[in-house]
């Protein structure tokens, strides 16, 4: 009888997890880039680096809009780094991010901060 409960609980857990993942796995990363003085950085290039167990590889890049925000799509990797660059400033430190599952939609809390030259 225990087995029925355990099996049912497992099936329920797996089913609901898959449902949640299915609804949220568009692979969108949203964030913003700021300049050292706090102003949003317009037209900065944000590059996406995918991290495997042994390497770090550059995969894609996108530009920030007029409000300093950027949207990266199509990169499902669950362990990655982002770096923002803009002419006239030092690149932001390459920070690592984690996702709970491949393609999780992320909205970054901390902005990518460019360095002062």
């Amino acid at each position, binding site marked *: 009888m*225990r087995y029925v409960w*355990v099996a049912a609980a497992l099936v329920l857990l797996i089913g609901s997890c898959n449902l949640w993942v299915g609804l949220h796995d568009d692979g969108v990363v949203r964030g913003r880039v700021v300049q050292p003085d706090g102003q949003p950085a317009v037209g900065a290039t944000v590059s996406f680096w995918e991290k*495997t*167990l042994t390497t770090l590889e550059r995969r894609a890049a996108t530009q920030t809009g007029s409000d300093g925000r950027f949207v990266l799509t199509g990169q499902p990797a*669950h*362990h990655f780094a982002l770096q923002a660059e803009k002419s006239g400033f030092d690149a932001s430190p390459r920070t690592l991010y*984690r996702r*709970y599952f491949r393609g999780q939609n992320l909205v970054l809390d901390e902005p990518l901060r460019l360095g002062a030259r």
Partner: protein
Amino acid sequence: MRPSRAAAVHATLGAVSVVMLVPFYWVLKTSLTGENIFQYPPALLPRVMHPFYYVDVWYYIPFVRYVINSVIVSVIVVAANLVCNALAAYALTLRFRGKRAIVALLLSCMLIPFQATIIPAYLITKELHLLNSHLGLALPLCSTIVCIFVFKASFDAVPRSLIDAARIDGLAEWRIIRHVMLPLSTSAVATTVILSFIWSWNSFLWPLIVIRNPEMQTLPLGLSTFLSYMENTTGALYAFCIMVLAPGVALFLLEQRRFIDGLTSGATKG
């Protein structure tokens, strides 16, 4: 019993329990926090959660593939064990010429550990072209001689009158086994299932020898190749350990009594 003595016994057993559980706690803590992989002195209590090693294991290591392989092999082994051992034990309850010699032969086979037969087993598996296959993995583990005697002891306890009545009713022999003997020997069946499942789930040497293809690896082999690949440079190794140990622990906790009874009766009978 005097309370002071009970307290002393509890204290000692508690200390021993701590010693027995420390490895689990340690690996569980590190797989969830990644704290003690590189730093020293080790933190005794978890400070910050970092559950992402499990995500690493899920995506970087074909964990599901390994589990499926292990499960397929274990299912084959358990089924074969049940069938072969029950049939053999039933044969041993009958009277026939040369029975004593066969029993002596089986008993002496118990003395030969599986590890002493890996070379001929490998050669035979190669001749049968079963290297790298689930059947080849399962074949040498298909019968544990101890289970034959466990079944035999249990079959011997069935009263002869039942069997004679079944024969008079015209049941074929194997039907007698299925409908009369097996339902009366549930503990022997449980013992066989537990022993053969544990043996095939944890078996490492045989998959190490037989498997050449990284996709056919079973769980213990997958764990050890990951270890040789990555040493302990990543917490994913410990997350992998936990994910590998979890089913075993869960199964044990669910069926604790049967487990312990099965293992000890398998050891003491015969």
